[in-house]
């Protein structure tokens, strides 16, 4: 029990609750169904990306290319579907986009696993390659006429609520995808040797190799999975905004990484949970969306996110510094 109280996840949960209460007190609209659905809708794409990001961070790496992979995958997939004049189920769009994303992710994985290159800089480079390739070879125009399947998916709702103006706000079905993905990732991380291997790798890479883990295989899997999730989140994004704009999503990496780190994952690897990541995503989404509710103009947003990242990572870093000083070199 003590361990739960001391865990970072508990701390974040506390912060989220306090934040909600404060914002709610200032502007009770925060607690309306309409706002809740809005928050969930905003959080879905970030959330799916954050799951992939979590896995990478737990393994000790940092990936900054997932947003680019997401938009690349859905853009290419949409172009293909339009060329085929495919109007069927959205499942095909998901599969296609996920496949493209996986391939791009494996490209990252290969560079990282075989050439042992520093992950952040490598993914900075590949992000550039993917973006450049997309804009040069695939196109730069916004696709407004989405394949029917994607459109329909985006409009499907789990529940609906009407607000004061009579407009109907729906809870998009994609939320199910997010929670489904979260459950699957959680199961994988906690109950399979693959998942435990990811934690081991993030804890001590040398020990992982000595223990007989297939480090290269694990890394390929991780980055492939990140690509897969990115592909899926791309389709979800397109369905929600009802177009595919190749300039979307890029730049949101910060938000996602912030969410994962605020949720208690250690940037150096080895620690982090799905539950924590969900909390972190909630925190970031609430911050992003509530500025308006609080009457703060939108151009304060970037600075606010910056402060949030610094506060969150600062507190975690300060805590772990004090802990590690306590555990210094024992002989």
């Amino acid at each position, binding site marked *: 029990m003590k361990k739960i109280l001391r865990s970072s996840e508990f701390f974040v949960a506390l912060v989220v609750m306090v934040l909600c209460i404060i914002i709610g007190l200032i502007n009770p609209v925060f607690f309306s169904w309409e706002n809740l659905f809005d928050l969930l809708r905003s959080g879905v794409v970030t959330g799916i990306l954050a799951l992939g990001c979590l896995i990478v961070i737990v393994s000790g790496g940092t990936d900054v290319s997932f947003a680019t992979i997401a938009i690349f995958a859905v853009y290419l997939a949409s172009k293909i579907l339009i060329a085929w004049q495919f109007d069927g189920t959205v499942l095909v769009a998901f599969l296609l986009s996920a496949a493209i994303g996986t391939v791009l992710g494996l490209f990252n994985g290969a560079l990282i696993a075989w050439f*042992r290159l520093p992950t*952040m800089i490598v993914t900075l480079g590949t992000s*550039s390659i993917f973006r*450049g390739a997309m804009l*040069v070879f695939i196109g730069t125009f916004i696709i407004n006429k989405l394949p029917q399947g994607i459109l329909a998916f985006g409009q499907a709702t789990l529940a609906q609520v009407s607000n004061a103006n009579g407009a109907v706000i729906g809870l998009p079905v994609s939320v199910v995808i997010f929670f489904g993905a979260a459950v699957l990732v959680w199961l994988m991380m906690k109950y399979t040797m693959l998942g435990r291997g990811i934690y081991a790798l993030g804890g001590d890479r040398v020990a992982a190799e000595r223990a007989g883990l297939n480090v290269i295989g694990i890394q390929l899997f991780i980055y492939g999975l990140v690509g897969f999730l990115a592909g899926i989140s791309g389709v979800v994004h397109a369905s929600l905004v009802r177009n595919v704009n190749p300039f979307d999503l890029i730049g949101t990496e910060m938000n996602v990484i912030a969410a994962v780190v605020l949720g208690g994952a250690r940037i150096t690897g080895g620690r982090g949970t799905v539950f924590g990541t969900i909390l972190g995503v909630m925190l970031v989404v609430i911050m992003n969306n509530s500025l308006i509710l609080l009457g703060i103009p939108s151009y304060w947003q970037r600075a606010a996110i*910056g*402060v949030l990242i610094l506060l969150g990572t600062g507190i975690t870093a300060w805590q772990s510094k004090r802990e590690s000083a306590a555990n210094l070199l024992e002989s």
Partner: protein
Amino acid sequence: MFDKLPSITSFISRDRNIGRLLGVALFILIILSILNPGLFLTVSNFKSMAYQLPEFGLLAMAIMIALLTGGIDLSAVGIANLSGVLAALTMIRFIPQGAAGWQITLVIGAAVALGLVIGAICGAINGFLIGRIGIPAILATLGTMQLFTGISIIITKGYAVLGLPDAFLYFGNGTIGIFPVPLLIFIVIAVLFALLLNKTALGQELFLMGTNPTAAKFTGLDNFRLTLKTYMVSGLLSGLAGLMIIARTNSAKADYGASYTLQAIVVAVMGGVDPAGGAGTVIGLVLAMISLQFLSSGFNMLRVGGSFSNYFRELVWGVVLILVMVINYLDAKKRARTPQESGTDAKAQMPDTAAGAGSAQK
């Protein structure tokens, strides 16, 4: 480094990387000259490169010094823009109509000083977060990037600040003889920077800390102060870059140069800076910059559908970065196999794999 002054040839052959870079720069120069003789080898082309290179070069140096110590500064562009915005606003706000020459000079001086001070303060914030609080450099500078850019946005509300005094614009567009002023400024700063790194105790201690911060601590080096100074220098250089940007473009924007960060990292890594810290030369950086600047101009000439060249350039930067790192890796692997000292003593502790145990992933 402690030898007598080396001759040019021994210098080049001593660092194979520099020799290679020189070769690459010349190669690109020749190819582009052949492909586009009329456009490339013109004075005007070199001139336009010479005006844009300096601001980028300063940012690259800012990021380089952070990389040298094993960190990174992703907020350099944000600091540059903030400095530029504040300096620009100072000049516009405090130069009344028909002001006397000396008044204008005074305000410009104050604005420049302000820009530099802001750069140093932002850098100090970075240094404090990384050195004292212990936030990993990636996260800290990711956060401060948002913060500094965000502050610029709040101040400018997203609009560009225009209308700077002519006297100031001289620094971005004027010439002394045939040399563009910004280029001269850059050369002076680059020389001072190289001097700092190679010939001062501070510079050498930075390299030591970047190579092994634990050993640095155990040797008595003050890691916190070194980190603070590193990021302050980085911030100062970024601030100066920001001033040069507004001097050249006559406008200050909160989000100028978003792609500069990646380019600066490419240039640094290509120039021989070890992303894990501990190695790098200014000459290498400059040669890499020149090579990429040639490439960049070359792309400008491939005008297909307007902005095509921009995206293509981004693609190429990414490829160059990855290629350089892969080549460095293969190179290091090959060198690990060659014998270094003759002797039959076996070492007590050996790395398990070629790249060495404990190689940190960033």
